[in-house]
């Protein structure tokens, strides 16, 4: 780690990535978030959770397309930032908006599909955040760890669905994020197919 060519990259991401959250915490109590501050905080935390999750999913495609290796070093930071915003989003909803009214929260999660999928996305991100350390990678073994962390794709897809179902009429913005996710996943599928072909060709050349 000490020999990393960009030692400033991860700390800069953390500071820059958390600054909107700090701004919300400052602006909210000062009444600078508009007439419906809670709704504004919900929108911003939710949007940033999705954006950062998509950014973390863009690291591998960037390497495949552009040949860059630095995104791989910030992927964990982006993923943890996304998780932070997802948790903040949930806390704003459960604590600030609903005042921890358990009955209402339960009814929302079980009866309102858009909340169900959003909650499911958050739950899926929990094991990924917990196993984000190097120790957990070693403990699980990389292949298993990697399979587990593919849940991020599911969480991102649920996040997009959550956004689409939340919007009253204009689905342009959520569909834009859906399109970005589709491109990122398509690049991964393309790479997986290419690898399979290479392996098959190798196997054909050297029959065991």
């Amino acid at each position, binding site marked *: 780690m000490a020999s990393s060519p960009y030692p400033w990259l991860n700390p800069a*991401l953390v500071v*820059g990535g958390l*600054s909107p959250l700090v*701004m919300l915490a400052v602006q909210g109590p000062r009444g*600078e*978030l*508009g007439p*419906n501050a809670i709704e504004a905080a919900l929108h911003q935390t939710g949007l940033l959770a999705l954006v950062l999750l998509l950014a973390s999913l863009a690291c591998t495609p960037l390497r495949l397309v552009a040949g860059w290796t630095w995104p791989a070093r910030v992927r964990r930071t982006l993923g943890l930032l996304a998780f932070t915003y997802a948790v903040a989003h949930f806390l704003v909803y459960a604590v600030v908006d609903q005042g921890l009214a358990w009955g209402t929260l339960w009814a929302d999660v079980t009866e309102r599909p858009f909340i169900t999928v959003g909650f499911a996305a958050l739950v899926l991100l929990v094991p990924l955040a917990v196993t984000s350390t190097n120790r957990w990678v070693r403990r699980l073994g990389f292949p298993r760890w990697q399979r587990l962390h593919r849940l991020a794709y599911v969480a991102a897809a649920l996040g997009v669905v959550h956004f689409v*179902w939340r919007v009253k*009429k204009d689905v342009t913005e959520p569909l834009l994020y859906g399109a970005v996710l589709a491109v990122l996943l398509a690049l991964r599928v393309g790479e997986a197919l290419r690898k399979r072909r290479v392996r098959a060709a190798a196997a054909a050349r050297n029959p065991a």
Partner: protein
Amino acid sequence: MSDTPPAEPPSSEVTPEKTYLRRRELLKNAGLFAGTAVAVAGGLHLLGRKQTRPMDRFVPDAGRVTFPVVKGPYDTDEPPTSYEDVTTYNNFYEFGFDKNDPARFAHTLKTRPWSVVIDGEVHKPQTVDMEQLSSWFPLEERVYRMRCVEAWSMVIPWLGFPLAALLQRVAPTSHAKYVAFTTLLDSEQMPGQRRGLLDWPYTEALRLDEAQHPLTLMATGLYGRELPNQNGAPLRLVVPWKYGFKGIKSIVRITLTREEPMTTWRLAAPREYGFYANVNPAVSHPRWSQASERRIGDFERRPTLPFNGYAEQVAHLYTGMDLRRFY
């Protein structure tokens, strides 16, 4: 020429080369760190929704109504929502989908001259100029609760006249059962209509007895001032026991009909928006529980009242109806 070597600074003042290089490295990295942090922060801030508080921080003097205003019945004594919030937090999709879009963009609407067509099942169909129409009735102030289907609410001091008075003047025929309202269709003045997200022009409707109810108001102002464009100038409907989307803005046509008219939101999402749209804490919208609401400016939610607290005045209109079916 001298043989003595040039005087050197004492070694304590010389930075060793390694430290010197590391310091430059450190400065470079600090710069890159700061630059990246600021770029990331800026990017994420831009992605978050813009919160603008344009407009006046207080009630403006301009547009103050100069003629006498009668105090209306049925006022709530709850404190009114601030003028600023009432005029900057609006749903008026003809001017954009964000709550602060209407306040920013509705200036393109020309409210003078303005005329309203009244037709259909009436004995005296007519087209009436707005100035003339408002001169027919004394203006009343009505402080009403307003409840949006998105589970927020406000208290607004409206100025206006009962719709019943206008209907009486045009004399409905015995076939009239419903009253339909239509907004202006003009994408030059209402740029949001260029996007086909709703079936423009916006239409709304009431049953005739709802329209004739003394609570039902045709509003031409609020807070003792003319109605701002974003609030539906020059003439809008206010039905305080129904969700806000029934309160159609900038009305150009009022048509009395025999059949139940189709309405905009019902056409867009029939499962979510019914014809009646009575405020009902027992019937949830698929996305918003209607059991509670947040009054704009409040921190905590409050329980929603049946018919938005006007049950005593209006519940009898719906006797025998299943309000889960007729939502």
